[in-house]
């Protein structure tokens, strides 16, 4: 049994009488020590999946179907107080923008110690020592002084290191990183990503890496999920998908990357943009933007089916070979 098993997860929002599905049947497994990438454009439902795992979907949204099993327990039916004990302790989360994630009126130290004291019985002195040690592990210079700093006194890179230190504080089994480097300077993105991956690797922490950057996923994860409009469109081993994508959308994402051997060449965009939840096209949600689309695509939603060693949701997956 996998460490984290997500089955047919659906999240729905009640908006002005209508029920909009932000997630429409997402399933995946995460093994201990594994790294899983979730890729897609903004609005694909990537972050929604992350919040759903932690049961942090706020009103008017809710998990309407499916299950999330972690370490043998079903999380989505857990009482609120039991779920709270899982958050931060067993499953931690790293958010996108370190400028927004840390509370501006509390010191770095206060935001670390509160986490320790909530989940463990620990003295103030021990909590401080442990926090400073974690700050040292994420390579923050003079961690003792930084413990008493306010977030606004730190650079973006340092703040994200603090956030990573907080995520690692209680040695969680899983870390969900939602676009952990997107808001950072390009020059330090690789550094922070490398640090995060190293720390997860050495501690055997499983990682769910949520990003719009398919290149990052291809370099860092074993398995990946490509999402579009709340559905998984392609799922399987990262290496295989990157080498030969079976879904036109995955292929579009890969072709949109700048090519190293063709500098200056024009990028291949995917025409159009992701539909909003209220205006999903009939059939395959991607078909208005797809070069392979025909009448079958607007006629019926393609099921997620097995194709070789992977899963793909496209009527024409075979044609992409």
């Amino acid at each position, binding site marked *: 049994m996998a460490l984290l098993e997500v089955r047919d997860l659906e999240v729905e929002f009640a908006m002005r009488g209508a029920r909009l599905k932000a997630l429409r049947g997402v399933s995946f497994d995460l093994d201990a020590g594994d790294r899983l990438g979730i890729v897609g454009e903004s609005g694909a439902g990537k972050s929604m999946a992350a919040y759903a795992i*932690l049961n*942090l979907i706020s009103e008017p949204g809710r998990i309407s179907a499916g299950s999330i099993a972690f370490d043998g327990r079903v999380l989505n039916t857990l009482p609120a107080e039991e779920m*709270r*004990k*899982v*958050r*931060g*302790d067993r499953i*931690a*989360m790293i*958010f*996108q*923008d370190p400028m*927004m*994630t*840390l*509370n*501006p*009126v*509390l*010191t770095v130290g206060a935001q670390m110690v*509160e*986490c320790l004291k*909530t*989940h463990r019985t620990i003295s103030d002195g021990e909590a401080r020592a442990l926090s400073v040690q974690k700050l040292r592990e994420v390579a923050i210079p003079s961690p003792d002084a930084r413990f008493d700093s*306010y977030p*606004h*006194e730190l650079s973006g890179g340092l703040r994200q290191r603090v*956030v990573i230190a*907080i995520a690692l504080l209680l040695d969680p089994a899983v870390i969900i990183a939602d676009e952990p480097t997107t808001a950072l300077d390009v020059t330090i993105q690789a550094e922070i990503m490398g640090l995060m991956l190293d720390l997860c690797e050495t501690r055997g922490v499983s990682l769910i890496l949520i990003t719009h950057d398919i290149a990052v996923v291809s370099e860092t994860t074993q398995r990946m999920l490509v999402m579009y409009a709340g559905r998984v469109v392609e799922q399987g081993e990262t290496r295989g998908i990157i080498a030969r994508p079976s879904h036109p959308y995955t292929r579009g994402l890969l072709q949109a990357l700048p090519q190293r051997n063709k500098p200056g060449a024009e990028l291949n965009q995917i025409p159009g943009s992701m539909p909003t939840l209220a205006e999903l096209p009939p059939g395959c949600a991607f078909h208005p933007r797809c070069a392979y689309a025909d009448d079958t695509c607007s006629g019926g939603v393609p099921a997620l089916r097995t194709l070789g060693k992977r899963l793909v949701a496209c009527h024409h997956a075979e044609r992409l070979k």
Partner: protein
Amino acid sequence: METLAFLIRRVGQAVMVMLIISLIGFSIQDNLGDPLRELVGQSVSEAEREALRDRMGLNDPFFVQYARFLGNAVQGDLGTSYFFKKPALEVILRKFPATFELVLAATLIIVLVSVPAGIFCAIKPKHIGARLIMGLSIVGISIPVFLTAIFSIYLFSIELGWMPSFGRGDVVELGWWNTGFLTGDGLEHLVLPAFALSSIMLPLFIRLIRGEMMEVMRTEYVRFAQAKGLHPRRVLFVHALRNTLLPVITVGGVQIGTLIAYTILTETVFQWPGMGFLFLEAVNRVDTPLIIAYIIIVGLIFVITNTIVDLIYTYVNPMVRISGVKG
């Protein structure tokens, strides 16, 4: 060091504000009619009047008079009330405790009611109680304070007979201060005026706290605090509330000043023997020195409360602490 620099800058600003207030206050003097009409009777001849004007310095150029006024004011002399024949400052300070206690009681009511009510309306926006509070706050914000005052007298004093309708009741003298807080009768007299005075600000603060709180609850740092597995209580009171109160403190500081302005209405309706009531009487009697002294003292209260609010804000918001040094 940084606190000292901050203080020096604040005091400098305060002096500037007080100078401007005193200039405006003093220039009113020429626009309220001839002070001599109040001082002497009809029978005094024009020559005698002119001599008196000369002796009082009323014929000097405006800025000479203003400079003399400032010189006296710095020494604590704001002129002599025409009506009471006593130093204006002394007359007003005698009434200050009554107004101060009324404003303090109203502020306490505002803080103690608006913070819990605002938080409740923010986290349970669909609850029937929250809808009721929001509905009532619209009503409260639309009714002028003197109407609330008159209506509460009608209901609680006349119809129900539960509350005294006017005055301050028994007060206890403590040196130059007199307080109504220490007697049951004094406290009973305080209830209606304090509620009437707070009625104008209370809805505003409930709505402000609710709005800020809802905004803060949507921020990433609140989400992150939840994702850390903190107790909901801690997320609410440590992470959300402190950030909610930052703008509330700023607005609150200004509104305390406005509250003093509203004491004029409240005190008049309730015959509350405070500065506001005194001011309205002074206007009716064209008691110019008293009017000017009132304006200057209220201006000073504004400046002092704003400085205190700034200091509190600096304490609560670490980002200002740093910019205070740089700026």
